[in-house]
């Protein structure tokens, strides 16, 4: 294995240019280095003006999502040696507007998160003095997978529907809604139904399945969405056969 590798990094400096361009940097190739280590080497020793987000460097905070050789990846968990001899193309996360270099704007996602009401909704809250809501390990298993989302948005980047139609509420938001819908302590499924069964909700999804492929935490958002389609369809049928006056 050679001891250096070239990174082709997208640069975008809005004060200077109207469109992004590519800049090449040669960095050392160590077998333990992630793409993020390469970028840090660029920033620390070659070009301090490169901007990108990162924090935990252990794949749990979700900050460092970027497009590496065309695929959405967490740069802290993607290793340079897997791309040897290179070059490695590092671009900002697709389907999001670019603020600067490798930094994208995620306020759309933050708004959508709130829309699905990702909190426990209950008719009546149990007082703390009564202790915990009982939940068996089997009941936790129902939603556990969907609770693993680190909000890295690789799924939004991979989703062609979101790319073509940014109104689509998106994989992570729906998976999070399911995490609460399937939590035995939650009673808010009805509250989330409207948002999820909108045209831009689950029905915009055509089960491409790229979101699940891209997810670094095995959340399987595509599964969450399809399962919710079944739920939403059943709700439609029920409300047609047995209409309730006010809902």
């Amino acid at each position, binding site marked *: 294995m050679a001891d250096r590798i070239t990174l082709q990094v997208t640069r975008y*400096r*809005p*004060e200077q240019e109207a469109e992004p361009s590519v800049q090449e940097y040669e960095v050392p190739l160590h077998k*333990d280095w992630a793409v993020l280590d390469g970028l840090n080497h660029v*920033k*620390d*020793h070659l070009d*301090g*003006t*490169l*901007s*990108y*987000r*990162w*924090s*935990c*460097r*252990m*794949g*749990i*905070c*979700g*900050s460092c999502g970027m497009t590496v050789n065309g695929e959405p990846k967490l740069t802290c*968990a993607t290793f340079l040696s897997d791309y040897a001899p290179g070059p490695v193309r590092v671009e900002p996360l697709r389907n999001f507007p670019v*603020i*600067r*270099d490798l*930094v994208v*704007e*995620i306020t759309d996602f*933050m708004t959508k*998160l*709130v829309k699905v*009401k*990702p*909190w*426990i909704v209950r008719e009546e*809250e*149990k007082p*703390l003095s009564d*202790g*915990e*809501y*009982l*939940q*068996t*390990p089997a*009941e*936790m298993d129902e*939603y*556990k997978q969907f*609770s*693993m989302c*680190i*909000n890295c948005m690789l799924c939004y980047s991979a989703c062609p529907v979101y790319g073509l139609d940014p109104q689509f509420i998106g994989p992570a938001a729906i998976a*999070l809604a399911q995490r*609460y819908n399937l*939590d035995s*302590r*939650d009673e808010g499924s009805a509250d989330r139904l409207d948002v999820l069964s909108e045209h831009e909700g689950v029905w915009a999804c055509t089960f491409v399945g790229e979101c699940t492929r891209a997810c670094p935490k095995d959340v399987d958002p595509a599964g969450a969405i399809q399962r919710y389609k079944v739920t939403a369809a059943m709700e439609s049928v029920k409300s047609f056969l047995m209409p309730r006056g006010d809902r």
Partner: protein
Amino acid sequence: MTASHDVVIVGGGGAGLRAAIAITETNPRLSVAIVSKVYPMRSHTVSAEGGAAAVIAPDDSLDEHANDTISGGDWLCDQDAVEAFVNEAPQELLRLEHWGCPWSRQPDGHIAVRAFGGMKKRRTWFAADKTGFHLLHTLFQTSLQHEHVVRYDEWFVTKLLVDDGRVRGVVAIELMTGRIETITANAVILCTGGCGRVYPFTTNANIKTGDGMALAYRAGAPLKDMEFVQYHPTGLPFTGILITEAARAEGGWLLNKDGYRYLQDYDLGTPSPTPVLKSMELGPRDRLSQAFVHEAEKGRTVDTPYGQVVHLDLRHLGAEVINTKLPFVRELCLDYEKIDPIRELIPVRPVVHYMMGGVHTDLDGATGLDGLYAAGEVACVSINGANRLGSNSLPELLVFGARAGNAAAEYASTPSGPSPAVLAQAREETHRLERELLNRTGGREPISTIRTEMQETMEENVGIYRAGDSLGKAANRVRELQERIHSAAIEDHSRTFNTQLTAALELACMLDVAEGIVHCALAREESRGAHQRTDFPARDDQRFLAHSLIRRDPDGPPRVEYLPVTITRWPPGERIYGR
């Protein structure tokens, strides 16, 4: 440009979010804002793994939790604070459960607890081995229902505005646009976390640069117990990634290069096949890290390209236990060490993990400055004393986040309003940022050079074992670096998401914090908990059963004074583990 709120919370992690929820739930008419340099779900709370301790088992008691914490802290904990903490921790964790936190359960559906280092009884609640992640996401998602909490996401606070001894607001940069804004407030709560990045090997994320500690220090609030820096015994070499204490709580062993469980040589008990509470691998973190240093001196640690390591052996736990109780540990080892803990030994070494010290506060988060509060790792109440027990810091976020929130809310009902002096300070800060930083030309050295030198100085001279002469050297070096940073190169003059600017600001914060650590370490001439002096190897309760309080002095080196520890029911004794 100015915005104005009743309470401004700096930092959106566990403590900050809990404070915001506390305020908005009890005082819905107050205007609350969270100003964070990262989106809240990126806060470092997210990477905590092991668990959160609170008394819940029928055979456990608050006094025992308090005793474990106080002796674990080598009697430097304020016992009234510890009593309040152990009392409120169970309610806080239960509140999180009601908010949806997926605590791991027993088969009957009740909350499960596990053993943890330094605790005599099983009282650590856990959510698989991603407790911090679930805690933070639960808090963040719960906070979303409170629409009145205003969030300033990716705004970097650079200065606290102080007038007439009272904090009146902050100056912050909106990272996306480069706008420098003044946010006035009746009360400010610092929840900015610790400062692990002052050292080269740390479990801490890039964002842990001690910003809040520096802000308070510069504004005149004293920092407390800064010399107490916790080394976690099991971090991965090179990356410093945390391998949770839970791995040892489930039964992992620490082996030296001969496959020997070396902790038995250091008065930590005798080895047994299954974990014994408060013994061997479940001893306190400071003692385990110190044992590593001695093993390395004896040449019994393993040599690797990334320095000396020992081995964490999980093989005897079996695939079932590892996959159900420690799945994240396995994932981390596979990804970052290319090792499967089911079959192989994990290389580990002590790495900086937590800062016991911080902004001096009382039980309600009030600091030495009116209107300024602090909670979480940034603060030092102190419940952790000279050494923190694992799984105490997550409940600390919740208990003191809520307390600080409530106290700040009460204080904020006495309005302050921006005086001309405050606005002048804000303008001055804006000019400083623009003139000295954004438009700096001709800088000589890269920021990374100064940062690396600081980190190396700290690791060499202010590490697990310290001595007077090397501490003196470190103090001089830090002073020198604080001069050199004024001519560090800032080539990025963009307003848009300028991370070179933030790196420079963070480095300045880290140097101030380093100054605090070194001078407190120099002044404390004894060994206690995580502060070990080779020239003063014994604990000295006569002179030093007190907290070091350090204040910035504009005309010279910082002043260190001592504040006696509050002792209520647990007189200082010997720390006994394994017997």
